[in-house]
């Protein structure tokens, strides 16, 4: 549904996006992560046919972003970095305007607006002037605008920023529902927990280049390594260390707990438990420490930084 090949964008000699390749199949969610100024917004703008690529190509919903910009823009719903509402309009007028732009019939405009406003808990504010909306309400309305014409592709820039937890959950649920309906999402966000929760694939962009692009599990394996287990015992953990030292590599420990890294938990964990029980340990719990996207993200960024530093050093 979204295919980008060697997509690049240059502004007056500055390479904002460099050779980006993306493939997001129908019905999946990709989270595009990266620091500020990494090229996320420029990439989204190229995929919306607002900016023309300097090099490379992209197709969105089957349309080439350069050859058929209007068709591309009618196939995508865009939530921009700034919600950009017309503050003197009422929500109902605002949505009606965008519905007209997308050539929806009056009846369809009205029913879609009501349906989405209800879904996001904004029905009470339909006739309220947008200038009087709270920040979170504005963000939700901008999302309603992006979804109004029921596009097959949604490009969302920070979809839940400025929202309270309840509203953010509403939005996440909506994304999951739409994904089930085979909608395709590209989400740029700094909320890594949300990205981890929603995205099928994660792409990390830095200095305009995609430096990682894979499923979460694969990225975790690649950048953070083997799973980490955390064991809690009732008594001191120190005397038990020798019992398991040949099975696992202990990475951290406290008075009553330890963390170890293990390549094959299915095989190794029962052995560890047996040894400790045999040694008289009272095991309270043994659980995996889940890897977070934040760990992966920081690891990817740090490796890339080191690599770039090496290149610079080499060039010197």
């Amino acid at each position, binding site marked *: 549904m979204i295919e980008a090949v060697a997509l690049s964008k240059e502004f007056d000699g500055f390479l904002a996006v460099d050779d980006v390749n993306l493939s997001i199949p129908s019905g999946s969610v990709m989270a595009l992560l990266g620091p500020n100024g990494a090229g996320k917004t420029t990439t989204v703008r190229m995929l919306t046919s607002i*900016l023309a690529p300097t090099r490379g190509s992209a*197709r969105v919903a089957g349309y080439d972003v350069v050859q058929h910009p*209007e068709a591309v*823009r009618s*196939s995508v719903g865009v939530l921009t970095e700034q919600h*950009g*509402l017309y503050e003197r309009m009422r929500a109902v007028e605002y949505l009606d305007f965008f519905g007209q*732009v*997308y050539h929806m019939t009056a009846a369809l405009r009205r029913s879609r607006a009501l349906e989405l406003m209800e879904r996001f808990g904004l029905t009470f504010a339909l006739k309220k002037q947008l200038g009087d909306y709270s920040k979170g309400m504005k963000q939700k309305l901008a999302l309603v605008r992006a979804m109004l014409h029921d596009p097959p592709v949604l490009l969302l820039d920070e979809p839940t920023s400025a929202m309270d937890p309840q509203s953010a959950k509403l939005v996440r649920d909506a994304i999951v529902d739409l994904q089930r309906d085979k909608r395709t999402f590209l989400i740029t966000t700094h909320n890594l927990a949300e990205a981890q929760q929603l995205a099928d694939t994660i792409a990390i962009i830095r200095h305009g280049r995609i430096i990682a692009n894979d499923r979460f599990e694969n990225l975790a394996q690649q950048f953070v390594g083997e799973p980490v287990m955390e064991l809690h015992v009732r008594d001191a953990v120190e005397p038990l260390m020798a019992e398991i030292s040949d099975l696992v590599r202990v990475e951290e420990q406290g008075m009553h707990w330890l963390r170890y890294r293990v390549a094959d938990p299915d095989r190794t964990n029962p052995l560890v438990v047996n040894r400790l029980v045999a040694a008289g340990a009272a095991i309270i719990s043994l659980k995996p420490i889940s890897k977070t996207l934040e760990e992966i993200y920081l690891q990817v960024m740090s490796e890339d930084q080191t690599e770039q530093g090496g290149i610079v050093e080499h060039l010197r």
Partner: protein
Amino acid sequence: MNTSANQPLDTLDVLVPLAYGPDERSSLRRTLSNALIVTRREVRDSVRDWRIMGPILLLTFLFPFFAQFVAGRFSSYLEGFGAEILGDRTVPFLLMVVGFFPISISLVIALETFVGEKERRSLEPLLSTPLTNTELYIGKTLSAILPPLLASYAGMSVYLLFLMGAETVWKPPALLIVQIFLLTTVQGLVMITGAVVVSSQTTSTRAANLLASFIIIPVTVLIWIESAIMFLAPDAESAGGIGALWALIAGMMIVVLLLLRVGNSTFNREELLGKSLDSINLRAFFRRLWTGVRAVDESGTPARNLLEWYRRSIPLSIRRLGAALPITVAVFLLALIGGFIFGMVGPWQLNLPQGLSLDAAATSIDSYTGILFQGNAIVGIFMQNWRVLSLASALAVFTFGAGALILTPATYLILGFLISQIVLAGYSPAFIVPAVLTHGIIEIPVIVIATAAALKLGAVITRPSGNVTVGGAWSAALTDVVKLWLGVLLPGLLLAAMLEALVTPIVVAAFISA
């Protein structure tokens, strides 16, 4: 939408109201209909803003009353001196001013059309919709034009109603009223289309307001001219209206069309969103200019030596003048023929003395050549040609290229006129050939190239080719102008001046003597 390139990847397209298939873009009706969606929203937004509506309403409905009061008092005062005509002639002027005020105040709407929305961050969602650049541009321009024009018409109508009720004040002829309505309309259109162009090319409302001086000042000068015409026109009371005003209306309509074209060509989503600062980098500008001047091909390869530069770089720039060259040649020929025809028309004939001796003429040319040999004739001829061509280039920049086609063809118009007078007086015009062509063989191509380059420099902003931005296209045209001046025009003008001063008189004298 039957080509494979246009087919969506899967069946989801049934869910999308794809009203914007590529085949449908050309439909003028659709363009207008989409543009009007934007217009309606914008007008509604303006109407809700009391900072815009307050002054417009005040000026629309209070100023006519004030104007009528002034006109009445002024007429009564002048009656005492038997100069009623002065008071009468203020009426159309005041009618025009009543119409002009709401437009000038409403310039603020036009000036912030794009840049204001960019500042309010609401532009990107709009640019992300399937509306085409033309639809957005037309929609925005119409929304900037309609409220002030309607206010202007309303104000003028109110003033006319007052006039109808007044007993002492002179009533202008119906066609003059029509002319003033038309003048106000085209003036408003010039200002607003200009302001929309400014708005789409600046990065802040502050910059747009500063640049508005370039609109307000020329229009103010225009109003002075129109006022003078209305005061002084001998046909002010003619049933057909004032002739000069018709010419002004037509001229301004052309400017409106050009500004609309410039606005539409320069409207660019990328520049609107991409630019956030108007920075001046003279060093980079001159570096790019110098690179362009040295380039022998489109990719900017520098010439290895002067010979290669003349062999490859100069022809490249001449080729890039494109249609400007044949247009210039055609205009020059038309000027020559026009001058000849003009000279044959009775009232403009010079009635030269007939039957004079050509020997005497040849003698006087001898003395003329004597003066020329005295030293600074070459510099004088060179400087004169340089001044005219430089001025034409400068004028072209501010007149979409039209200035270039006004100044330089004047020479050919005069030449055609002179030939007609010589023919009418019974002399053979054959001596004109050596008189013109001896140096003209160099000078005429030089003038044609200079004029064509100036035309291109001014006109390129109305239609940048391909994906090039207006700034890029203008820079490329400027590079060609600089290159041609350095490589062809300055050496050519110098050589032509030397020929004209040193060789042409001798050839002409020899021709006449023979």
